[in-house]
């Protein structure tokens, strides 16, 4: 068996991609439909069926209650965090969610946590990679917004595990982009990566030196992206419709989806054109049409874009550099296609006045996945292109513990290079006290209640001693994925203190475990079934072509014997494709393909004057535009 590859995955708010390093170049692996982007949309049309990506999109209009999109916005969050999102997104949450509990989405009659939805998207990407390699894929690097907190990172890692992927590393999206850009040019200097995606905004400032990519500061907003622009436009359209047509569609999910689709099309068009038209067929057949100029559009979205300026300035300040010291600016994320965004970055980093332009050479939708593939390659031990590359990333948020009076005592400051650790000592306040409670938070605010609660720990089993005598050493360690680990020891007794970790918004190991098994069982079955379907499609393609063969003059040029053989093999294949024996079916298809090879050549000769040697029936008929086209652009996946 060939070496199992580590793939790089960009699990995006709007779209997701999987990529790998092909010799010295990262490439995106397309899906069955030949497209690189897999929309992060999951439809659950029935209790036994899960549809992911483009095919899931069609359910948005017909049965939106069975579709989940932008689930990344919910990763690692609690009900109190997402009140804003709930106003704008048609997320259907389970009704009984308590504060401080992992969210559950109600999709028709079933409930799913955000990591499970993420896992379905990841599983689709895994399948795409497996069919491309013809081998199982079990290890991945997954990207996350740099400004993701511990809980959001953990949720992403959980999603990977549920999808049957060992997540070797979580890489920050802007850093991944820097890796992709840094690959083919030996750059030195300071680079800013401005990443405005579907749902999140990140800014990272890196120092590049002899292959070391050292992040010196990062900042961002995990609630800011293209989705917010769409929602503004939708709100305007809804107001319009209400005013002009007297229709209140706010609660009509189908109509809102139709409008969403139309405004997104208009938004995309406005990156190139000066005007665009939002046109929707409303329920009841009434049309809604509105022209929007680029100027109007820019005015509408200005407040959203301006929210990226503060994080940029803070990152510059934290990095201790002025805009003039930034050598290069890299733009990442689909939203950076908007001309106003480019103008804004120009102003923030004083680019054109210094005769510079932001880098946009790599497709902003793909660059993060390409970078993830580069990192995957580095983890595999590197290739010629990556052997000197090393990524040193930072933690985006300060880690602290709640001290007396609810004040936060910071133990690891934001922008510390990870892995990073801090050791703290705790003692008891009461004679014979056996437990000490510790509250760990993440954030920049002074009071614990204003920060993000990560976990509450109970140090248990402290040997009975006078108050203040026990000396419990607690080690906090943020690993290379930006995820916190805690260990504790009572130093006087030498006893390992027991820690009971209660992640505030996370799933327990057991919960993750149970979710894996569910999807894993299905995955095996799904995979086999999919291979069979693909093999049948292939058989159908060739049989349809053979059926048309006698009508072609080239048919008469074959010997009687050849025609006989084709007929026999066709009949055999027709029987095989009704069964479910995958390898016989494949062998049958191959035999018929071989038998028709000369016919294909003759047909090519006849049709085009130039002979195309070595053509098979399948490809020749495709070239001539006859018969069904091949169902997929690649060789079928083969796993033995």
């Amino acid at each position: 068996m060939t070496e199992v590859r580590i793939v790089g995955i960009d699990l995006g708010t709007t779209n997701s991609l999987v990529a790998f390093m092909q010799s010295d170049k990262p490439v995106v692996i397309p899906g069955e439909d030949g497209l690189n982007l897999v929309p992060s949309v999951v439809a659950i049309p029935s209790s036994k069926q899960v549809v992911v990506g483009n095919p899931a999109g069609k359910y948005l209009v017909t049965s939106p209650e069975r579709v989940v999109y932008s689930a990344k916005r919910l990763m690692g969050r609690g009900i109190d965090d997402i009140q804003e999102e709930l106003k704008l997104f048609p997320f259907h949450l389970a009704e009984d969610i308590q504060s401080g509990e992992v969210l559950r989405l109600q999709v028709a009659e079933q409930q799913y946590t955000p990591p499970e939805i993420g896992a379905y998207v990841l599983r689709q990407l895994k399948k795409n990679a497996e069919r491309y390699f013809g081998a199982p894929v079990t290890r991945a690097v997954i990207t996350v917004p740099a400004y993701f907190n511990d809980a959001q990172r953990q949720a992403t890692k959980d999603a990977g595990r549920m999808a049957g992927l060992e997540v070797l590393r979580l890489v920050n999206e802007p850093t991944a982009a820097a890796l992709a850009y840094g690959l083919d040019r030996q750059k030195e200097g300071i680079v800013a990566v401005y990443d405005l995606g579907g749902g999140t905004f990140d800014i990272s400032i890196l120092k590049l030196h002899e292959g070391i990519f050292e992040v010196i500061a990062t900042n961002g907003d995990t609630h800011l992206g293209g989705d917010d622009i769409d929602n503004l436009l939708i709100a305007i359209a809804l107001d319009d419709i209400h005013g002009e047509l007297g229709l209140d569609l706010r609660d009509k999910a189908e109509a809102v989806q139709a409008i969403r689709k139309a405004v997104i099309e208009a938004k995309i068009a406005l990156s190139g054109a000066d005007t665009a038209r939002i046109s929707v067929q409303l329920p009841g057949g009434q049309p809604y049409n509105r022209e929007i100029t680029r100027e109007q559009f820019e005015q509408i979205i200005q407040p959203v874009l301006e929210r990226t300026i503060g994080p940029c300035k803070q990152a510059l300040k934290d990095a201790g550099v002025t805009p003039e010291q930034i050598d290069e600016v890299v733009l990442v994320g689909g939203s950076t296609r908007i001309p106003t965004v480019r103008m804004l970055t120009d102003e923030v980093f004083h680019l054109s006045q210094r005769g510079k332009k932001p880098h946009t050479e790599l497709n902003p939708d793909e660059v993060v996945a390409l970078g993830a593939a580069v990192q995957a390659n580095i983890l595999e031990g590197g290739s010629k292109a990556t052997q000197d590359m090393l990524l040193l990333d930072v933690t985006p948020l300060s880690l602290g513990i709640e001290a007396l009076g609810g004040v936060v005592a910071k133990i690891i400051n934001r922008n510390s290079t990870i892995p990073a650790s801090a050791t703290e000592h705790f003692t008891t306040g009461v004679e014979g006290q056996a437990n000490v409670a510790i509250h760990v938070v993440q954030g920049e605010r002074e009071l614990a209640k204003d920060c993000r609660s990560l976990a509450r720990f109970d140090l248990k089993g402290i040997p009975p001693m006078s108050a203040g005598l026990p000396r419990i050493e607690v080690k906090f360690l943020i690993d290379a994925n930006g995820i916190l680990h805690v260990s504790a020891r009572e130093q006087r007794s030498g006893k390992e203190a027991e820690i009971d970790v209660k992640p505030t918004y996370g799933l327990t190991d057991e919960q993750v475990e149970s979710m894996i098994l569910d999807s894993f069982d299905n995955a095996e079955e799904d995979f086999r079934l999919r291979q069979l379907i693909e093999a049948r499609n292939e058989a159908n393609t060739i049989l349809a072509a053979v059926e048309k063969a006698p009508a072609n003059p080239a048919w008469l040029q074959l010997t009687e014997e050849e025609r006989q053989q084709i007929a026999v093999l066709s009949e055999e294949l027709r029987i095989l494709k009704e069964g479910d024996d995958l390898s016989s079916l494949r062998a049958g298809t191959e035999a018929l393909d071989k038998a028709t090879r000369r016919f294909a050549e003759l047909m090519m000769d006849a049709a085009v004057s130039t002979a195309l040697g070595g053509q098979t029936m399948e490809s020749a008929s495709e070239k001539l535009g006859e018969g069904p086209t091949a169902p997929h652009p690649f060789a079928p996946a083969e796993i033995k």
Partner: protein
Amino acid sequence: MTTIGSTADYFAVFDLPRKLHLDLAQLECSFYRLSRKYHPDVYATKSPQEQQWSLDQTSLLNDAYRTLKNSVARTEHLLRLEGVVLEAGKSEDGVPKDSRVPPDLLEEVFELNMQLEEMRMNRKMGEDDPQLRADLEKARVTFESQLAAVDSNLEEQWTKWDAALDASPADEKTKIKDEMVALLDRRRYIRNLVRDVNDALEG
């Protein structure tokens, strides 16, 4: 609940003597070299034991680099290694503000606090007093130069420490350490003042 910092020797991580003057470019160079050696990326497909080792080594390396490249954190770390118990307040973003006013600054601090209070009141009422703003700007300059003076005093002590490290008797070194502790306290106090003034002006 008490918190005492870790006592790992960060100078030793870089094979450096416990001297306070440090060539930062060289430190960065060593940091990159050691990162290439220890980083978890290098051990991603190795055994769990090797991965744990790499994680421990790299976090120690990062903690050491972060501490040593910052002059104040470096001085504090050295003092801790030398057995000095520093105030609970931690370096830089230390939370518990030092409340002891250095005697020579008493008058200026008193005036500044009045001005800051007035500024806060004005802000509440939505007013802007240009004279007050100008006074605060002036105070900022004053305290920033005070801060620079402390830093240069600290550097003098570094030089003394570095020279005394191998040669001088213990009581000489203790004197330098006490001097540095006092300077760090003063520095922390002035730094908080500068921060307050900046906050009030930028508010």
